[in-house]
């Protein structure tokens, strides 16, 4: 056990799984010599050579399609999008081919696409998007969004071992900001099991990725006011551990879904809709959603702050719901 950053944890997971399984290879723009725009793959090309850490041309479709093809013939590809935003250039391939091939043709496609995602640092409209909502709508893909270093390592390994296409969302804001104890050995963290990040009794806040930390900060604030908040970290949104959400909401009777994606049809809409349907009898207040405003993520700090969910937004909404 040692303290690691979220970024280091992902890097370790990749390296250890590559050492264990020679079918695993990495492909992406500037991931080899440069070690990746965020340096997640730093040193890996030196260790594994240029055919297991492949610097690709600027071709997101070719990168992701190459993963599909090589997965079908026995490899375990891991692609990096330089920013999650650029996965739009591979959107067609992922949703048309990778996601549907198992259902249509019975072909397993074990592949991972790593997506450095999220905002909060003036990345502007094209370097700040979450992108989880778009893909969560597509049957056939798994979506992993770890919030802690320990999960980040275990889930990147699980993603590689999963026999299906997995989108692995790495929140850029967590890369170097979040540290935690991470086991040294190789391990994998199963998909589809949510985590109670903080126990509480008054209101359930459902979150994932960086928003777990926003929720925890808000919970801390609210505790001072005597409001007890339970924070659920979904970890994966596909598969979705709705049972854990339901169990918590059944106890608290009040639910807030907090997500960084834009409000309309971000994945929080699905969770809110399910709570409203399946937990109707348990609810003592409306299901609230806190999310980014329905606009592109703006560049200038005051604008970006106004668009992304802030701790104070959560405090305000939860307080209001608690007093419903």
């Amino acid at each position, binding site marked *: 056990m040692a303290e690691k950053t979220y970024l280091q944890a992902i890097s370790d997971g990749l390296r250890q799984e590559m050492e264990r399984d020679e079918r695993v*290879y990495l492909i992406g723009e500037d991931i080899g010599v440069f070690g990746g725009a965020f340096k997640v793959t730093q040193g890996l090309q030196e260790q594994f050579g240029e*055919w*297991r850490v*492949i610097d*690709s*041309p600027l*071709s*997101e*479709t*070719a*990168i992701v*399609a*190459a*993963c*599909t*093809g*090589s*997965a*079908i*013939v*026995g*490899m375990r*590809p891991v692609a990096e999008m330089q920013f999650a935003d650029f996965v739009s250039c591979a959107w*067609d*391939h992922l949703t*048309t*081919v990778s996601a*549907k*091939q*198992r*259902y*249509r*043709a*019975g*072909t*397993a*496609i*074990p592949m991972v696409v790593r997506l450095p995602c999220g905002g909060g640092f003036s990345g502007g409209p094209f370097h700040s998007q979450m992108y989880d909502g778009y893909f969560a709508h597509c*049957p*056939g893909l*798994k979506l992993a969004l770890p919030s802690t270093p320990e999960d980040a390592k275990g889930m990147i390994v699980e993603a590689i*071992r999963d*026999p*299906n296409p997995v989108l692995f969302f790495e929140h850029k804001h967590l890369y170097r900001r979040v540290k935690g104890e991470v086991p040294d050995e190789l391990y994998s963290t199963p998909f589809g099991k949510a985590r109670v990040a903080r126990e509480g009794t008054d209101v359930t806040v459902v979150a994932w990725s960086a928003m777990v930390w926003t929720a925890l900060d808000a919970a801390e604030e609210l505790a001072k006011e005597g409001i007890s908040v339970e924070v659920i970290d979904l970890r994966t949104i596909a598969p979705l551990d709705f049972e854990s959400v339901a169990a918590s909401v059944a106890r608290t009777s009040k639910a807030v879904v907090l997500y960084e994606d834009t409000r309309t049809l971000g994945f929080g809409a699905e969770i809110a809709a399910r709570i409203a349907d399946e937990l109707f009898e348990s609810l003592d207040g409306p299901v609230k959603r806190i999310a980014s405003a329905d606009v592109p993520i703006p560049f200038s700090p005051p604008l970006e702050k106004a668009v992304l969910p802030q701790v104070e937004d959560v405090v305000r909404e939860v307080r209001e719901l608690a007093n419903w």
Partner: protein
Amino acid sequence: MSTAQESAASPRLRELGLDREDALQMYRNMLITRGVEERGHILFRQGKIPGSFYTGRGNEAAAVGAAFAMHAEDWGTPLHRDMGVHITRGIEPWRIFAQYMGRADGPTQGKDGNVHLADARLGLIAMVSHLPAMLPVAVGCALAFRIRGEQDRCAFAWSGEGATARGDFHEGVNLAAVRNLPCVFIIDNNQWAYSTPNDLSYNTQRAAERANGYGIPGITVDGTDVLEVFEAIKAARERAVSGQGPSVVECLTLRMEGHAVHDDAFYVPKEKFDEYAEKDPVERFRTWLMQNVAFSEDEDEAIRTSVKRLLTEALEKAEASPMPDPATATEGLFASPEELDNPHH
């Protein structure tokens, strides 16, 4: 088959590394290909095929010739005019009919239709509709062969000439070119993309000239001549597996029917059809066989009869296949770990 016949076969076939048996096999595969699609057409008119229906009439030589040049361990991504590839790789025709009719025993178990099928055990990957999305997938297969250092393994990607205008074509071919991957790109140029003529699809004389932008060779062959196709693809494969990189082979044909059943191809000049009717790939090869390897009317009759029987039995078997259980509609979205325990994984 007498030794006299054998030696009659030699000059051209020997040059190609083929024997008479191979040539007859090609012929047979072309007949099966055409037969499957003709029967499909009848099934469609009988109302037994849901949705629409597409064939590759006129492309039999291109598809069979190319597939014949593939090695057993190779992989490929044939498209909607390439039934001959599936046939040559050995799919059982009854499963195609079952697929056409949406039955439980089709390769996709009713999940998909038409020639959106493939048997992965035969080294083929089922196409999606979006063109040419499977081309960079084949490049991925080639990349895997290269990573693993497999020296005699090649990936084959097909694209219509129209679909070469799409970004997927560009990104796939470019990646293969800069990484020198063992890959062969086959352009089925049947002169129309749905109703779109070639001069609205590309701006070069030949579609194969697309290769020039990638610094790789691009040649054009007569796609109605199965041996010419075989020869070109074989050479392209040798090039690829010997480390000289990918190349483009364009097979020039004519789409002898409409884009699909609902299209009467009014936009194709009648003379074009006449011109290519003269060059019908099956007839052409039959004549060649007779002139070059002493192929007799009796032999032909025997092959045709056996193909007919094969298809009749296949149809019966397919019609006996049940419609899929509605409960299976929501199954099969995700693979389970055990599925990776198969030969190629």
